[in-house]
């Protein structure tokens, strides 16, 4: 494509005579050491590299630097935000745990109160029941005592009657009531 010797040969006569002679010599030279193109090489290198340098310095490098800067800032910002969210989450967990502890304490108190109340109620009930029972017991005992005394009293009368009847049967005739009573009494004692 670009590297056609025929093309170079055609161009040579277009310049002046000395150049074409130089080129005829330079064909034999090792091309990189051929000084005839040095001015052109240096000039075009200066132009192209100079433009390249300016373009990179003015446009490309600030842009790439900007992209990297923005990304670094964004990452730092995101990290900050993440740290903030983490601390918020930690605070929420702490608050939750505190509330939980409070609720537990409260529940304990309520439970204790309920237990105490129930115990007190039960005690009161028991006391009432016990008091009722004791009263009934006392009444029953009183009644028993009364029955017993009454029975004991009647035992004397029965014994007198029986004694009088026995005496009447055995002895015949009426037994002295007072004597019978005295005798029974004596026997009882």
């Amino acid at each position, binding site marked *: 494509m670009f590297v056609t*010797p025929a093309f170079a040969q055609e161009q040579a006569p277009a310049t002046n005579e000395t150049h074409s002679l130089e080129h005829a010599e330079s064909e034999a030279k090792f091309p*990189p050491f051929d000084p005839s*193109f040095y001015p052109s090489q240096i000039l075009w*290198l200066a132009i*192209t590299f100079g433009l*390249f*340098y300016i373009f*990179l310095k003015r446009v*490309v490098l600030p842009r790439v630097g900007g*992209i990297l800067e923005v990304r670094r800032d964004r990452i730092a910002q995101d990290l900050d935000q993440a740290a903030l969210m983490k601390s918020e989450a930690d605070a929420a967990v702490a608050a939750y745990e505190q509330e939980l502890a409070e609720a537990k304490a409260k529940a304990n108190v309520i439970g204790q109160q309920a237990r105490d109340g129930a115990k007190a109620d039960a005690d009161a009930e028991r006391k009432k029941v016990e008091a009722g029972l004791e009263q009934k017991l006392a009444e029953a005992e009183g009644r028993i005592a009364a029955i017993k005394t009454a029975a004991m009293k009647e035992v004397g009368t029965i014994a007198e009657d029986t004694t009088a009847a026995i005496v009447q049967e055995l002895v015949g005739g009426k037994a002295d009531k007072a004597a019978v009573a005295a005798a029974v009494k004596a026997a009882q004692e």
Partner: protein
Amino acid sequence: MSNDPIHQFHITKLIPIEIGGYDLSFTNSSAFMVATVVAASAFLFLTTSSRGLIPSRLQSISEMSYEFVASMLRDAAGSHGMKFFPFVFSLFTFVLVANLLGLFPYFFTVTSQIIVTFALALLVIGTVIVYGFMKNGIGFLKLFVPSGVPGILVPLVVLIEIISFLSRPISLSVRLFANMLAGHITLKVFAGFVASLSAFGAIGVAGSILPLAMTVAITALEVLVAFLQAYVFAVLTCMYLNDALHPGH
């Protein structure tokens, strides 16, 4: 002619220009300089035009090369060296793209011309000298007098330092030039074997498989060399700029 491995380095005039007795023609070399600059600029400009917060693949190539050169310069020359960032980035990109473009068949390799690499090297050394004297004044000459050298040895060491400083543009330019030149000649020679062997019929075609494989392998190697030489050029530029910024050893 087509098998001449030197042929690819010939310069031909596309638009003859002559000013004041100097031949300033627009040549195939100039055309590939323009192509290098246009390709590199267009790539960097277009891939970053969306300014994506989350980069596309191509955008991350541009960003990676930016950060690659930036960290290279910061490591070598410190944060003061960042004022040379556009310069080093341009040099790196220009050399890299010129090297890579040259790998295409029939394309001209700008960096295989000693005058081009020498001009770039002189630009680097010129920047070092001009900036070195601007910033440090006469103190820049301390560059040639390393501290902690016994008095008797100072003249010798200064001489060595001066020679080493003067040889920098030569080594810088010749390294890049020679690598590109040798690689392209080797590539051409092996590729030429393929063509000439194939002319001998079926056996020749079978025999040309080996040089073909070599051509493929060398092409891969040359891609590596293209990167490596651009990197070496940029790293050495950074180190020389560091001398201008901090002349005391």
